[in-house]
């Protein structure tokens, strides 16, 4: 253990466990103690993130594997920092949330995310991955509505399936003699299972619909937390384990455009922002696929700034929901009259996500395009540039326009209470602060940064791109008019097709059952006597199995595996 840390002294206390423990205490705490805990615990976690010694700490043996539950380097510190800041801001915003259990679950969820990014081995990472899945489901459920209950059920099933993929991948990786340490993963079938499990959490196709289905059903404060951790922890794992995986480039680009198209068609303001999460994570996934230090820095920086501005946008939308109880664009509009602070901070978040100069998005996202340009990936570069224009269209203007401007809905809600306003201002300051002084962020990135965002050419080209996208938005307003509709997504398969197929199958079964029952009754007696022949006294299956037959079946399994391996 080396005592060389930026803070000058070392405490190897897991910051994630501090938040998880706080989450459990929050179940019982009340009043001032509760508020103090909510605001102090994330700051303690942030301090602990920066006191962790570089490299592995706290190693121990478990079932023959060397586990490293705490391992710090630049990449994990970057994510640890933004996760801690986010927990503080989210806690501040949610202080008035009357369902105290939601914030308790949110802290456990945040602690799980923090623990994954500081996990030095795959087993620890998996354990906290599952903690996140369970805690985030609780965050959705604690919204307390019928919609949230059903969406949470769908959410947890999909994430437990992702967990199964991940666990199968890790088990196969270890069984194939892979190292338990959590680093770049070698080429093997196990790698693809792990990748599939991670991509599910990133919101990648084909199951991406879980995200816009579940997140917007959370409460006005719950979705702020949900937007930050699950997808970005997945991005962290991709940067750590799969840098330069070419398939990620095209997968990421698909996510980018899928997010834009569905957000353009969407009417629910928080579902617009949910689709926008997939769009933004798509940029990061593409960057991981490009895999150069410039692109990986871009992915990491983009994750950092995206957590902040997406939380800001969702706080702005959450404030509107909190004050009006409405979430559809068709019910909203004209709120700038009485919610000036919510409007302005929402616009700052919208400018940041669009990567306007002087905002955090500008200094981060451009590194991804630059990464594609340096590698001479022409198609990728042109698609990313078109997508940057599309981000302004679907999130940058659409969200603030239909909620705060457009027609006058007649609603006259005031700005939200003090604690919520404070959170809005805090994150707005961060968006602008990082945009004005990018050196702060660049200093945290995993690779040395050789990039200057504020060149005249870059500023002018970005302004052209965005402002002409704005022109397109206002000229095409008639085509963008909101309708009271949803757009079918992959969740149709498990919300409509599956249940319908099951219902018709059960209907068929009911009629078939009557015909079958006769046949069954006749065969049962036959089976009983057959079972008695084999398992009864002197039956073949009642005998102890010889080791030889065990070895034989193990060989058959291994042969089957070998056979599958060649596919």
């Amino acid at each position, binding site marked *: 253990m080396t005592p060389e840390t930026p803070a000058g002294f070392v405490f190897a206390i897991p910051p994630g466990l501090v938040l998880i423990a706080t989450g459990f205490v929050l179940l019982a705490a009340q009043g001032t103690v509760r508020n103090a805990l909510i605001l102090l615990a994330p700051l303690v976690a942030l301090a602990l993130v920066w006191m962790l010694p570089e490299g592995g700490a706290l190693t121990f043996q478990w079932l023959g594997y060397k586990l490293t539950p705490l391992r710090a380097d630049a990449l994990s510190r970057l994510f640890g920092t933004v996760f801690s800041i986010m927990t503080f801001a989210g806690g501040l915003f949610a202080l008035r949330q009357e369902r105290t259990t939601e914030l308790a679950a949110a802290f456990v969820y945040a602690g799980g995310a923090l623990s994954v990014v500081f996990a030095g081995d795959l087993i620890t990472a998996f354990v906290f991955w599952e903690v996140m899945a369970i805690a985030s489901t609780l965050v959705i459920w604690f919204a307390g509505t019928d919609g949230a209950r059903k969406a949470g059920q769908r959410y947890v099933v999909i994430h437990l399936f992702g967990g199964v993929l991940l666990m199968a991948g890790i088990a196969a990786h270890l069984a194939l003699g892979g190292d338990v340490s959590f680093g770049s993963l070698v080429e093997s079938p196990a790698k693809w299972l792990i990748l599939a499990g991670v991509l599910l959490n990133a919101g990648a196709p084909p199951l991406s619909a879980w995200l816009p289905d579940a997140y917007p059903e959370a409460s006005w404060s719950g979705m702020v937390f949900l937007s930050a951790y699950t997808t970005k922890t997945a991005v962290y794992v991709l940067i750590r384990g799969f840098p330069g995986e070419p398939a990620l480039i095209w997968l990421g680009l698909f996510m980018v455009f899928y997010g834009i198209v569905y957000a353009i*068609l969407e009417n629910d303001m928080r579902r617009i922002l949910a689709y926008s999460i997939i769009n933004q994570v798509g940029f990061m996934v593409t960057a991981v696929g490009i895999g150069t230090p410039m692109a990986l820095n871009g992915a990491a920086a983009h994750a950092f700034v995206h957590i902040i501005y997406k939380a800001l946008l969702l706080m702005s939308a959450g404030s509107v929901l909190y004050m009006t109880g409405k979430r559809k664009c068709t019910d909203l509009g004209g709120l700038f009259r009485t919610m000036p602070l919510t409007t302005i901070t929402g616009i700052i978040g919208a400018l940041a996500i669009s990567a306007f100069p002087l905002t955090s998005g500008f200094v981060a996202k451009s590194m991804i395009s630059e990464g594609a340009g340096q590698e001479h990936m022409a198609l990728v570069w042109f698609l990313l540039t078109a997508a940057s224009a599309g981000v302004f269209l679907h999130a940058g203007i659409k969200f603030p326009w239909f909620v705060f401007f457009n027609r006058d809905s007649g609603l006259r809600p005031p700005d939200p209470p003090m604690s919520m306003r404070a959170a809005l201002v805090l994150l707005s300051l961060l968006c602008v602060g990082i945009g004005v002084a990018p050196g702060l962020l660049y200093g945290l990135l995993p690779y040395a940064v050789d990039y200057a965002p504020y060149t005249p050419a870059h500023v002018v080209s970005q302004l*052209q791109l965005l402002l002409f996208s704005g022109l397109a938005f206002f000229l095409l307003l008639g085509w963008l008019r909101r309708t009271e509709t949803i757009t079918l997504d992959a969740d149709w398969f498990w919300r409509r097709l599956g249940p319908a197929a099951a219902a018709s199958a059960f209907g068929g079964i009911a009629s078939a059952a009557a015909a079958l029952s006769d046949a069954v009754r006749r065969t049962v007696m036959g089976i009983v006597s057959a079972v008695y022949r084999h398992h009864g006294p002197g039956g073949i299956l009642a005998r102890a199995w010889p080791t030889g037959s065990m070895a034989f079946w193990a060989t058959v399994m291994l042969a089957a595996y070998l056979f599958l391996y060649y596919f």
Partner: protein
Amino acid sequence: MAKRPDDTPWLVRPSSIRILWVVFIAILAGTVLADFFIDHHGEFGVDGTFGFYAWFGFVSCVVLVFGSRLLGVLLKRRDDYYDA
């Protein structure tokens, strides 16, 4: 509530909207004209040409909007679709 002209916020008065459009168009023109003074030295050729980002951004958005509308024709449903 009677709507006298003074009651409506400045932002939504027709006269202000006209002003905002004029200012917006002036800024748009300004960003394109700036290309006369800036060397974009593009990576792929066309991205270094005059006004590239302006038309590319505009065309991208037009394509995205109409592409989305097209998909919407197939996939849009009433928002109580799953509640039924």
